[in-house]
């Protein structure tokens, strides 16, 4: 991993955009990185588009707002359309190909098409497409250690939903297997 990684997670409210960002952020914390997590906030979060900027770095984070991401995680078409041109050359896009029926036309970035929603449903973990995508991102970019990701999942899943820990870990593994 390069010395800093700026990621934009984007999709509909309710897809777990903020949660996926938080799992990534906590993994960075456990790896001893500098980091920031910044959600979009406002009326657009209710059913509309939602996004979240996560920066991991070896140095102090300047602006926590990711304008030109190294990595875009897109979970719906409006988000892909909105941010596809903002990705830096040489960057990458992870998209949920079971929701986004479109190919990215840029050839200066790496695009990973993951049928995340379909995979989650088939594996009995409906609603965890976000974490499946995060698992794929972990495999391709190694932005954190496996140990830190597992610790992060355990930290981020609230105590009241402890049963979800294993489902989230399963989602990571499914993503990593893609």
């Amino acid at each position, binding site marked *: 991993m390069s010395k800093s990684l700026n990621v934009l997670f984007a999709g509909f409210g309710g897809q777990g955009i903020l949660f996926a960002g938080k799992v990534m952020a906590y993994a960075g*914390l456990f790896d001893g990185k500098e980091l920031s997590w910044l959600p979009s906030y406002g009326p657009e979060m209710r059913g509309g588009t939602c996004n979240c900027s996560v920066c991991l770095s070896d140095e102090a984070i*300047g602006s*926590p707002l990711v304008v030109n991401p190294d990595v875009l995680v897109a979970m719906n078409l409006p988000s892909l359309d909105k941010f596809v041109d903002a990705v830096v050359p040489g960057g990458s896009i992870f998209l949920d190909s079971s929701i986004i029926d479109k190919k990215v036309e840029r050839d200066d970035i790496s695009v990973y098409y993951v049928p995340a929603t379909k995979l989650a449903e088939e594996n009995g973990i409906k609603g965890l497409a976000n974490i499946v995508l995060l698992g794929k991102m972990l495999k391709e970019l190694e932005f954190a250690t496996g140990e830190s990701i597992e610790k992060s999942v355990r930290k981020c899943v609230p105590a009241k939903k402890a049963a979800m820990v294993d489902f989230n870990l399963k989602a990571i593994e499914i993503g990593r297997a893609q």
Partner: protein
Amino acid sequence: MAEKVLMKGNEALAEAAIAAGCRHFFGYPITPQTEVAAYMSKRMPKIGGTYLQAESEVAAINMVYGASSAGMRVMTSSSSPGISLKSEGISYLAGADLPALIINVQRGGPGLGGIQPSQSDYWQATRATGHGDFHILVFAPSTVQEMVDLVSEAFDLGDQYRMPAMILSDGMLGQMMEPVVLPEASDKPLPEKPWATNGTRGGRPHNIINSLYITPAELEQLVFERFKKYDEIKEKHQKAECYLTDDAEIVVVAYGASSRIARSAVNTAREQGIKAGLIRPITLWPFPDKAIKAAVPTAKQILCVEMSMGQMVDDVRLAVNGAKPVSFYGRTGGVIPTPAEVLDQIKKLGGVE
């Protein structure tokens, strides 16, 4: 060392206030500040404190006045339009020499404005949080950790000088999560407040908390004394961070959220061979004019960057006093400037391009 956790600025601030001994919170919800109140509503009842959602911002600030009169460590929080509503009460606090912590998680204005981050309440915070001849202490954190660290300092200085203190945050700092080490709950007793109206127990004369002084000479004298206190604070409590300013030819001045963006731009400028540096005021009142003046000799250009149309730039110009050119770059209305935009300004001033 205590565990590092990830917390939103708003929540970390609330927890830090509790650790600093605050047990009374009066507020009213408003985006992007609501997490402060939400956090307090969960925590305060568990530790024997008071969380009260008032019927309005005006009511909340007057509850603060009451609790502070009784000698309690008390706070309120709001965002820009709500602070305007509180301004009458803040003036009364200042006029009655009462300490209290006021949080402003700024959003775009004027009017209802927007809900995205802004720094357009600088003038209000440093010039006129209400009517009359007075100042309040104003602190401007730029990270979640600093937000936490400044809370107890704001409470302590407010108590020491018997005046309101404000933490001027914004929607970005309030909403973002960063690693933070929360302070241990302070076990040092809060300062004695012999002036408080908390019962004579039959043993001392009545204390009176009041901001009404009908006799001009008496009021003038009181204001004179307050301004002596302000002079002492200006002398002793200015705070700023100077980053790469020792040899800086282009000195950027920015606080809070915009200082983070400016710092990225300064780093890139240095990589490109431009001698840029950053002065980051941490106290906005007292304004750190000593730090600005110290950077003037090496500076060829001074650039103030804000998320407003240019408010702090007035104080920068006063400190520079015409010795060097001062220019301004800002975005407003909830738009956050990018490091690239600030870098462009630095390059222009440096004659590069």
